């Protein structure tokens, strides 16, 4: 496929590992391999013979999730079908000090499901039963492997749907959405996954099964559901979720407004928000991404557009009509030279076609590209876009911009030619500099793709050592043995090197076991 950061842990000396990873720290290579193979018969007793994958070529197909830049062959893969099986597997891992990595559909974009050669990959792809649709309580109970869109399919006959809609919604699993706190184009109005989960059953890293929340809308005490959602598999595995269902809106109207430049588009977004209109989605594309989408799917956006704005409104028909008229006026005032409006499903799909294809479409105008994911406060959008344009001009690297304008979630696409020596590195540099811009403007290093392995080393750019230490303590409350998806989400010295790069080796106190370090 392409260049990869393939890591083979078997070549490492045990001292390379930090003590946050006790599973690997104290044991040698042969030891780890032995422990894993001793585990196989017991895993087979739990998951059944066909629920455990040990063959090398089969295991290799699991080496990456949706971000293939990182790859590592799992030691063993299990495919449980029940919550009890998941808990038993985790219990076994805890008892043996073997790390585990959860995986849903493997569509993540931050290598959050990057497996471990010395660990067990727990895949929920056989746990895909919609257990219950309860329209009276406006919720559904599902297994974690159910695809996001399948909840909507199950709820549709009752006039309901599941609101979070990541663009991979027909594939990505609810369990993965919970781990990453996934959003989507419509999270502006409806919020992220965390706003739509009422209850969870989780298998803890010690092998217990715990229920958090339920069908009731609110529970007293600490918001453990809120803490678990977005924890990227470091606090355990969701084995069942009770999710909120939302009534299918009476009317949906989508507007497409074309502007000559991004500034005018940004101004339109600000004025829409200032007027108190809350659209379901506000998406923006720049000239380069429009060019790509035209090349890929011939979406037929207005000719000469330097920016297009897609505004979707949903709700009671009267409200939608009034809001649509308002948005139209505001776009015109901001300088839109053409506005299209669609209410039918087919027409709306035509407007969305260009936006939804944008990521894959960029491949048509560039041999390779990086999809970045960052957030800035909406008010800083214009300034940040200007800075990105300057970065691009200075480095000679083209950057296409597609973003959820309503909530400031940017997806700059950094284009490069992977056949050209050094181009990949230069593109990665620009991509990193864009994240710096986001942080400098008070934003975040990820909006919805998660941290995983990919951005773990960027966490210190956003958080102080004390912040990170607090997070690590929290994590350890759930996972004292450090076996739950190690080296994801929080930076480790092995992964990121010392921060800020003073020491090269493991600290003497750590090596002696007198201090802990993350």
């Amino acid at each position, binding site marked *: *496929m392409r260049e990869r950061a393939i890591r083979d842990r078997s070549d490492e000396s045990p001292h390379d590992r930090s003590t946050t990873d006790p599973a690997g720290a104290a044991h040698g290579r042969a030891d780890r391999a032995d422990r894993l193979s001793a585990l196989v018969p017991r895993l087979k007793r739990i998951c059944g013979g066909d629920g455990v994958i040990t063959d090398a070529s089969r295991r290799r197909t699991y080496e990456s999730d949706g971000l293939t830049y990182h790859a590592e062959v799992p030691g063993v893969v299990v495919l449980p079908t029940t919550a009890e099986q998941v808990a038993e597997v985790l219990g076994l891992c805890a008892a043996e000090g073997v790390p585990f990595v959860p995986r849903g559909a493997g569509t993540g974009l931050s290598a959050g499901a990057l497996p471990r050669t010395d660990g067990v990959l727990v895949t929920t792809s056989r746990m895909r039963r919609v257990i219950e649709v309860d329209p009276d309580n406006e919720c559904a109970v599902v297994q974690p492997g159910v695809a996001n869109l399948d909840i909507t399919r199950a709820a549709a006959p009752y006039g309901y749907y599941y609101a979070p809609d990541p663009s991979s919604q027909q594939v990505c699993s609810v369990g993965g959405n919970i781990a990453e706190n996934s959003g989507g184009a419509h999270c502006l109005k409806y919020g992220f996954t965390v706003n739509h989960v009422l209850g969870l059953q989780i298998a803890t890293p010690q092998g217990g099964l715990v229920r958090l929340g339920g069908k009731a809308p609110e529970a007293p005490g600490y918001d453990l559901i809120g803490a678990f959602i977005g924890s990227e598999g470091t606090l355990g595995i969701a084995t069942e979720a009770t999710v909120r269902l939302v009534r299918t809106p009476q009317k949906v109207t989508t507007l497409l407004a074309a502007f000559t430049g991004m500034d005018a588009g940004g101004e339109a977004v600000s004025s829409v928000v200032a007027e108190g209109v809350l659209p379901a989605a506000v998406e923006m594309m720049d000239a380069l991404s429009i060019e790509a989408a035209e090349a890929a799917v011939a979406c037929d956006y207005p000719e000469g557009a330097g920016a297009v704005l897609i505004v979707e409104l949903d709700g009671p028909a009267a409200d939608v009509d009034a809001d649509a008229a308002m948005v139209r006026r505001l776009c015109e005032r901001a300088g839109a030279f053409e506005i299209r409006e669609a209410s039918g499903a087919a027409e709306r799909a035509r407007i969305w076609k260009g936006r939804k294809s944008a990521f894959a*479409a960029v491949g048509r105008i560039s041999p390779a*590209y990086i*999809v970045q994911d960052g957030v800035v406060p909406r008010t800083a959008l214009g300034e940040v876009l200007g800075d990105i344009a300057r970065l691009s001009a200075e480095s000679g690297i083209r950057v296409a911009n597609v973003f959820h304008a309503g909530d400031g979630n940017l997806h700059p696409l950094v284009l490069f030619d992977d056949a050209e020596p050094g181009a990949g590195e230069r593109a990665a540099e620009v991509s990193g500099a864009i994240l710096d811009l986001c942080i400098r403007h008070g934003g975040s290093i990820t909006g919805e793709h998660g941290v995983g392995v990919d951005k773990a080393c960027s966490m210190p750019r956003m958080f102080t050592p004390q912040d990170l230490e607090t997070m690590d303590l929290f994590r350890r409350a759930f996972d004292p043995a450090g076996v739950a998806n190690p080296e994801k989400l929080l930076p480790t010295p092995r992964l990121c090197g010392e921060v800020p790069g003073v020491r090269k080796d493991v600290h003497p106190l750590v090596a002696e076991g007198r201090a802990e370090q993350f």
Partner: protein
Amino acid sequence: MTESAKSADGTEGAEGAENGAGTAERPFPDLLSDCVHCGFCLPTCPTYVLWGEEMDSPRGRIHLMGQAEDEGVFTDASVGHFDNCLGCLACVTACPSGVAYDALIETTRARVEEEHERPRAERLIRSAIFSLFPYRRRLGLMRGPLRAYQASGLAKPLRSSGVLERVSPSVAAMERMAPPIKGKVPALPERVPAAGRRRAVVGMLTGCVQGAFFPQVNTATARVLASEGCEVVIPKGQGCCGALSSHSGRAEEAARFAEETVRTFEKAGVESVVVNSAGCGGTMKHYGRVLREAGRPDDLVRRAEALSAKVVDFSEYLAELGPRAERHPLPVKAAYHDACHLSHGQGVTAEPRDLLRSIPDLEVADLPNPEICCGSAGVYNLLNPEPAAELGTRKADDVASTKASLLVAGNPGCSLQIAATMRERGEEIAVAHTAQVLDASIRGLPPSALV
């Protein structure tokens, strides 16, 4: 670094059905590298739907192809997963990056047949299947004995004894799938004149399985074309188009059949070649690739491409031509099943529905999960009876949920598979090809002609 993706070839279409186009000259590793591992193919893959395992998904199989490419050998495990692929091409429709999985799996299968030694029993059953199915005359010879067997009442005790299942699950599947043989159907003439003013001269493929077991579909196809003003040329010497062989990696055999078919229709001197079997049409539209795969010379490849350009599915052709013959009412509730090689392989989904909906009083329901294969997949249900039967059951559930009394499909294998599954469950349903429904309507036949 976040997601980094390689671009697809600029000549490829974004929509699934076009993925195979323009990829003919690109080397295999190049086609492999188009996959960015996004996973959008997973939910439409029938084996992933059944088993939920990465290596039995298109993304996993592409990974296994990459492994074989890197290491130069096929592991037994990987061959098993390639064999498990139905070749339905639903993944091609679902892929946003334009990966030509159709070309990838075809090449991989040919390499497996060439390089991988199969166990003896498997070799035997494969060679038996391929010395029977692509030959209409041999299939024709089976009609008599099959009819006698079906009339004898032996089937019931034989099935419940499980003897065949023990001898070979493939033979047992063959016995189950065999269509009920009805009375003799008169052979088609070499030329059927157009009714009224002639609008076109078209060739027609009669096919092997279609010709032997569903001759009435061919008769209906010719009659509908003629009543729409087409002169229909049905070359006598035509044989199998090569699709069955091509889908199973028998590249040389497929090329031989393809070559013969190209010659036959070149001689016929027609503007278009109408095909009423989705699997055949899908392969005939890629004859260039079939011949190139088998190392045929360039001039032959070009001739094959020229023929491919004339190949159209029956429904595609009629939709383009526009109706002339009057449609009479046909008060029936029908369900339309998308044959994979029509919908995913050729991108033909709206045309057959439009044709059917143009018939007064005919109610046409869509099936739930239309993108998922019924499990027939050429000879897949004979080679992999177990998953085929599971998929057949799922499809039968979906068909039953529509409460239709007639199932319409554009491929003989699908009709056989779904009808057999429904029969076993005691929910017998009438099946018909789109051509037969149109024929009945144009001739003003009562619904009883179909159901």
